[in-house]
């Protein structure tokens, strides 16, 4: 489990976004609606992938992207898995809010997708599932499905799950400067049972990802898990930057 395979046209990195679009996403976060903060961060993440894939004026298909929005149902925003050059033409999907937060149902979709797409034989970057939510689930417990997903693997390592939890009540203290924050460790005290559950559903941050994040100016320390407290727009954006931190060639 080294997570060193590079995202290339021949070995593209697969990133699956799982976005909670429940009604609570209308609530404010730093002067904007949470859903708008997420849309902006998603746009920035896609732009970053395009930035890292552009050679000349062409976009190389270094990333394969799937995007699910969920409430009581799951919506496939890209109609299957699309390469980054295809997503460039499609643009950033419009997120519409609905009732309910059936996280387990969304993770079941992801599990089915990965069973179709994943091969332990291929040496390609381990897929990353980036889950963004702002509150407790309303359906079944998603944790067992998340565990099964984390046991799946490509030739480069087990599937990674990252959680961005938008809430102002996760950590006892505020994070004044995300660029100097060391990250959530396994022993970091969290507020609330669901925060603990999401941490258990989060993969350890691979060293190769940490190196890429260091180059982007973040200071996450070894031992951090792939969980971001969405207490500000900057932290939400940091979470989406983390999702694009598969190593690439210069």
């Amino acid at each position, binding site marked *: 489990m080294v997570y060193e*395979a*590079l995202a*290339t*046209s*021949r*070995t593209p990195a697969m990133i699956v976004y799982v976005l909670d679009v429940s009604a609570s996403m209308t609530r404010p976060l730093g002067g904007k609606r949470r859903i708008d903060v997420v849309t902006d961060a998603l746009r920035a993440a*896609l*732009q970053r992938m*395009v*930035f*890292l894939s*552009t*050679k*000349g*004026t*062409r*976009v*190389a298909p270094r990333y394969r992207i799937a995007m699910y929005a969920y409430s009581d149902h799951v919506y496939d925003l890209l109609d299957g898995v699309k390469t980054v050059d295809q997503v*460039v*033409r499609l*643009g*950033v999907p419009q997120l519409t809010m609905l009732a309910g937060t059936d996280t387990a149902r969304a993770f079941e979709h992801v599990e089915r997708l990965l069973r179709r797409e994943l091969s332990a034989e291929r*040496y*390609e970057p381990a897929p990353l599932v980036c889950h963004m939510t702002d509150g407790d689930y309303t359906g079944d417990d998603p944790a067992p499905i998340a565990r099964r997903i984390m046991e799946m693997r490509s030739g480069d390592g087990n599937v990674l799950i990252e959680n961005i939890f938008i809430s102002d009540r996760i950590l006892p203290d505020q994070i004044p400067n995300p660029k100097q924050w060391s990250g959530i460790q396994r022993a970091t005290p969290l507020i609330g049972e669901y925060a603990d559950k999401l941490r258990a559903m989060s993969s350890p941050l691979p060293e190769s990802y940490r190196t890429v994040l260091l180059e982007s100016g973040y200071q996450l320390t070894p031992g951090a898990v792939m969980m971001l407290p969405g207490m500000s727009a900057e932290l939400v954006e940091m979470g989406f930057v983390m999702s694009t931190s598969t190593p690439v*060639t*210069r």
Partner: protein
Amino acid sequence: MDEVVTIRVPQDRETPVTPLLRSGHAYRYAYTRSDDSRRMDDIGQDYLVIRESGTRFAFALCDGVSQSFLGDLAATILAEALVNWLWEVDFEAGDPGTLVRRCRSMLADLTSPATEQVMHTQLPADLPGMLRDVLEQKRRIGSESTFVAGVIGHDVSPATFVWMGDSRLRIWLREKNAPVDFGDVFHTRERWSTRKGSVGEIRSYSIPSDEIVRMVAYSDGLAWADQQLTVSLVDDGLEQIIAESRSLPASDDVSYLEYVRRQNATESARDGALLHADTSSSRETEFGSTGQRVAAIDEPAALDGGATTLVPADSKQASQLIAGRVDNRVDVRNQRQGAVRARIGPRQLLFVVLLAIAVAVVVLAWL
């Protein structure tokens, strides 16, 4: 022979290993685009320029940074500027510190016209909005390239090399088996930027030209083969490594240049005769033996200067010379065989035939 020839290796196609033999040196070069560029039929972002005359050899090998704005743009601007600078500047009086200062100053002076070019480069009109936004973001950062460049004389004048970035440079000196140990000085983060000038440290190396036996420079697309490239390979072996680089998942552009100084006056005189003989033969015959290899440098767009006096000689011999497979003993033997062949001309052959007939007539008469 003071005509100056400049070879600009095309960025829009592959150039196989192309060996060339000159009176004072031999060299070979190759170029291949990354797998991505080949698939998208895009140009490569490496750029290799070679300039030579009868007395000097200069080159600039630049590797455009793909995460900057059109990295091939910086590579092209920089390579042309470096070769011009190396060709024109007199390094006789310069110490390494002076050399680096002059290089930094040249690179700084280049930022203004280069930025102008970056700002005026038109993007295709039909780009999707997100891609256009990203490219405009990159335009603000500027275009960037790493480089390795140098100039070598045929006498004791200083050979001078400068570089920034992770393109490789290896130099073998007289009576030394191992290449010069430069230490940890090939760093990806060091580069030239159209906006900032030199980013990081400019590295340099100088030595009397006649100390240099062999020099190899290549871009980081061949970094995975560093170990294999510590020895000189025959053309096919080198071609195989370059082909292998295209099949790697992280395939990158590859540009390769290898220079070998002719060992001594005898060798130069012998191969000079060969060069002369080849020059007098027809271009069709001469290029026929090397086919596509020569065609790649024979295009007017890629080659300028006095091409007629610096036509390629026997590419096989150039390859052998570069790969270190020609030794004096074999040469002497070949020369003797050549001498024997030279003595048996048509007149001698006629004399031998007549003599044989005469002997046969005498024998028949006696019987």
